[in-house]
């Protein structure tokens, strides 16, 4: 039974499976996003201190959560590829990186736009935003390194080492930035704290986070298929597929 699952470690075997999964996750993402947005704009009440501006939280926090979660998943797949020498794991890591970087950018952008009405300025060096910025650089470094190495096997392995070093450092970086921020901001920590969490607000954030997660799976699987076709383009089954299309 277990050996059956390992069959899907082959790019050729997983390719059609990914294709079948994508529509399901896309639909889930769409439905959850609609539900989440409905809660965000029509169910969640107006905040006492921040007014309507706090509604950005329903996109900012899920994006930030996904940016961090995807980095860990990416590092996990990279480590798997390094340990078990499976090509598909490295391809999965490559497939995850652009989506992770996208969510990081969205977290930064929405964070800035949330900061302007609440703090008066677009960019603030608060601990979380600054850590997000560094996370974006970690993603970009991973993508750049993979793109710079022509041999795909070597690129996967080098990327995996970098992702693991990054993953180990992310908590250290976050801690150091938070330390730096509290030192310089004094007692006004947690300036971007969410308003005291009404149940509806939490629900909205969770639903949007789930939507983002389903979306990430769908998009990553689609990108993975692209990568498989590109990397395995000399394989017989790919040639057959191209000829049939």
């Amino acid at each position, binding site marked *: 039974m277990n050996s059956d699952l390992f069959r899907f470690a082959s790019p050729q075997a997983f390719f059609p499976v990914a294709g079948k999964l994508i529509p399901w996750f896309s639909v889930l993402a769409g439905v959850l996003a609609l539900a989440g947005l409905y809660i965000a704009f029509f169910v969640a009440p107006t905040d006492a201190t921040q007014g309507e501006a706090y509604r950005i939280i329903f996109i900012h926090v899920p994006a930030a959560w996904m940016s961090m979660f995807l980095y860990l998943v990416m590092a996990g797949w990279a480590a798997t590829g*390094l340990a078990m020498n499976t090509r598909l794991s490295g391809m999965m890591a490559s497939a995850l990186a652009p989506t992770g970087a996208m969510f990081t950018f969205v977290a930064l952008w929405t964070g800035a736009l949330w900061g302007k009405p609440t703090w008066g300025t677009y960019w603030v060096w608060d601990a979380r935003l600054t850590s997000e910025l*560094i996370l974006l*650089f*970690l993603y*970009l*470094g991973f993508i*750049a*390194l993979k793109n*710079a*190495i022509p041999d795909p096997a*070597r690129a996967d*392995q*080098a990327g995996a*080492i*970098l992702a*693991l*070093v*990054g993953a*180990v*450092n992310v908590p*250290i*970086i976050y*801690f*150091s*930035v938070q*330390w*730096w921020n509290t*030192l310089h901001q004094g007692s006004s920590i947690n300036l971007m704290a969410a308003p005291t969490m009404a149940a509806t607000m939490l629900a909205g954030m969770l639903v949007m986070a789930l939507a983002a997660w389903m979306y990430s799976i769908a998009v990553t699987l689609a990108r993975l298929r692209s990568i498989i076709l590109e990397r395995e383009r000399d394989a017989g089954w790919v040639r057959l597929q191209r000829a049939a299309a």
Partner: protein
Amino acid sequence: MRGFSLIVRRDLRLALRRRGDVLNVLVFFVLVASLFPLGVGPEAELLRSMAAGVVWVGALLAAVVSLPRLFSADYADGTLEQMLIAPLPLAAVVLAKIAAHWLYTGLPLALIAPLIGLQYGLPADALAVLLAALLLGTPVLSLLGAAGAALTLGVRGAGALIGLLLLPLYVPVLVFGAGAVTASLAGMNASAQLSLLGALLAVSSLVGPWAACAALRVALD
């Protein structure tokens, strides 16, 4: 142990032969530190508050500039492959090269930095903290830097890429290193920051060489 010290001395000898390269890095450091006042104005209070950050950012940039050469020369003439199959464990080879790198980059930089601190108007006790922090922090730059150098070995555009890879990872060193001096300027004890730098040194002495060895094996396959 003999093999270790052999490689340290070899790398130092090679660095001394290419004295220009080594001095370039140090001059770069001093130059970067000299540019900031030209950019922000000579007001003493401003410069004093900036000093810690400027010196540390300069140290980070100087490290990034010096690192591509750590493995590239040996890679080009096949010595690195010999080191891989030699009886001395690769980790020892890498640690020896890192130690030498610190001796010809980090250590001189740490020793010059108080002079720059003086230019920026830092008082004596802040200068002492700066020196201590740099002595603790520059080895971290070499340890993690070796991993960056190994990952980008033989890659086109390695110089720019190595900065992109390493600078995010250097952030904790920067934060605690500069924080130590800032604390001292404010009249506070910098022991917390220095201890944190020590902790970073401990962590990076495990992570850096591991990653560098793994990356070298990948590059030399």
